[in-house]
């Protein structure tokens, strides 16, 4: 039981015990670096296979069906927003995709290859990192410790192997580099994160996810607790993450944010995906109407009024 350091699992595969390896990698190479064996496939081929895909996921809690055969597609290099009313199954979907819950039916594919996640660690080992709402960081630990929490780097050789001595300096240096990559300005990496502002704290969580993610970054309401200026900073960060070639799944209630940053929008309703939308093609009001069931999309992706009263109530004709 006292064999404490057995808990943190070093990053799977060959990757160095640090997230450093991902930093200098040009965006184009991120996808083929997957363990799915697609490395030899031409880039065009990779682009068409969704990075993360789900088909017919079902999750029931007794009589309640949280997920009712939901599909999900995340393409390479995009920011995909997932929106939906309360109880639409957003968080169940995200939990299923990040290993926090196990679906009763259906299949999840990473780079076209079926995968099963028994717990969040499994998903993490395959390069899927999640920024959880309000649950991002350990308050009394410093930034570097948070960046490496659960994946600490030990000193090389005898000191690390036998005495389990942490390599504080290396963790600080690499943390500093990752924070700089996302242009997160900080006074010091040795201060506890509880002394940071909400935006900076979220920045630490995002930087950690980006540093370790090799496939997908999932962010659950990253701006929910933030002010306008700080939200803007987080949205900028998300753009930088995408520009580095990592696809981002963004769960948000904030329509202006979603329209500002998403390349595509996955609309979740009653446990299913009811629409996939490009922000330019529909108005915010239409999207909200689809989300609430007042509008439906027909086969040509044209909005069709499903509930006249509801549509009128939100000002659509």
């Amino acid at each position, binding site marked *: 039981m006292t064999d404490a350091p057995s*808990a*943190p*699992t070093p990053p799977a595969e060959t990757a160095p015990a640090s997230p450093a390896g991902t930093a200098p990698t040009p965006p184009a190479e991120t996808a083929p670096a997957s363990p799915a064996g697609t490395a030899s496939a031409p880039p065009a081929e990779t682009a068409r296979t969704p990075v993360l895909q789900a088909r017919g996921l079902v999750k029931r809690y007794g009589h309640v069906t949280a997920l009712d055969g939901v599909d999900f597609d995340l393409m390479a290099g995009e920011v995909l927003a997932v929106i939906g009313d309360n109880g639409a199954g957003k968080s169940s979907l995200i939990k299923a995709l990040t290993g926090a819950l196990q679906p009763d039916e259906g299949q999840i594919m990473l780079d076209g290859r079926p995968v099963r996640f028994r717990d969040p660690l499994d998903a993490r080992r395959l390069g899927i990192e999640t920024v959880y709402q309000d649950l991002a960081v350990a308050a009394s630990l410093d930034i570097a410790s948070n960046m490496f*929490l659960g994946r600490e780097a*030990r000193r090389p050789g005898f000191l690390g192997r036998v005495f389990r001595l942490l390599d504080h300096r290396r963790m600080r240096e690499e943390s500093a580099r990752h924070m700089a990559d996302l242009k997160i300005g900080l006074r010091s990496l040795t201060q506890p994160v509880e002394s940071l502002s909400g935006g900076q704290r979220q920045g630490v969580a995002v930087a950690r996810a980006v540093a370790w993610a090799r496939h997908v970054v999932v962010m659950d309401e990253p701006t929910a607790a933030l002010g306008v200026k700080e939200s803007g900073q987080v949205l900028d960060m998300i753009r930088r993450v995408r520009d580095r070639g990592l696809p981002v799944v963004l769960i948000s209630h904030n329509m202006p944010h979603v329209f500002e940053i998403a390349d595509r929008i996955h609309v979740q309703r009653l446990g299913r995906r009811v629409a996939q939308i490009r922000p330019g093609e529909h108005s915010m009001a239409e999207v909200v109407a689809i989300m609430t069931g007042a509008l439906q999309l027909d086969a040509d992706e044209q909005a069709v009024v499903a509930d006249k009263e509801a549509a009128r109530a939100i000002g659509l004709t």
Partner: protein
Amino acid sequence: MTATITPPKPPEAAEPSLARRLLTTPTVGPLAALLLACVFFSFNSDQFLTGGNFSLIIQQVMVVGTLAIGQTLIILTAGIDLSNGAIMAFGGILMAKLAAEGTVPPLVAIALGLLVCAGFGAANGLLVTLVPLPPFIVTLGMLNVAFALTHIYSQDQTVTNLPAPLTALGETFSIGDTRVTYGSLLTILLFLLFAYLLGQTAWGKHVYALGNSPEVARLTGIRTGRLTVGVYTTAGFVYGIAALLLVSRTGVGDPQAGQTDNLDSITAVVLGGTSLFGGRGLVIGTLIGALIVGVFRNGLQLMGVASIYQTLITGILVILAVTVDQLSRRRIR
């Protein structure tokens, strides 16, 4: 949020100043209190500032201090252990009785005592993790269980005529002309060991993270159940060492021992600046906290103050320490 109204602030200076960092380190206050107390008592008593007296103080605090190491681990996870004194008493009686009656060789008796104490700790940890139950209730129950077992097993008899290995830690060696017990040395080494484990290993970081928020720790991939059971088991093992220190210091197995040591160990942890809310504090602070209690008792005794005033002052210090912790947390928020 007011961020919309306030103009953007210029980024602050690079590193927080040394003074600021000192003030926010939770161990600085207790250390200052300890030093002030030492200065005060050395002016009021000729015998206070001597090697022999300090050796005595360490001997007086080593049992509670060692218990407080385990207590620190548990409080850092936002738990609390009311059963540590009773577990120690049972471990001590078990070691003493097995060895004195010759049931097993003395060293085997010691090993069994350590294991049984670790087992009590593991039982606490499993109940806290698996059921799960609040640590306060679990350890309150375990306090009674261990207390009762101690009296049943010993039939309320003090165990005497202990073989040499059980009292070896009570032997002394010399530093200059000061006699120091091996037990005192062992206690200091234990503090250093746990300071290292908490500050310099991944395990330590995980303990702090768990104390900050079990959910954050779990989502970061830390196996929180295993970690919690590990912490309680480790604490139990340390209580076993405290049992050996106790037996070696008194030279007997005493079923009445350790009845207020649970609260005394919490006192040491709190005086050392560790937060009862978990996730904040240092084990070296606990050593300082234990020494504060020891120095006040010893100094007031040397000044001829009645012992009940020592208790009074300890109580005031505890309330003061918790107040400081609470206020400093509020400032951070």
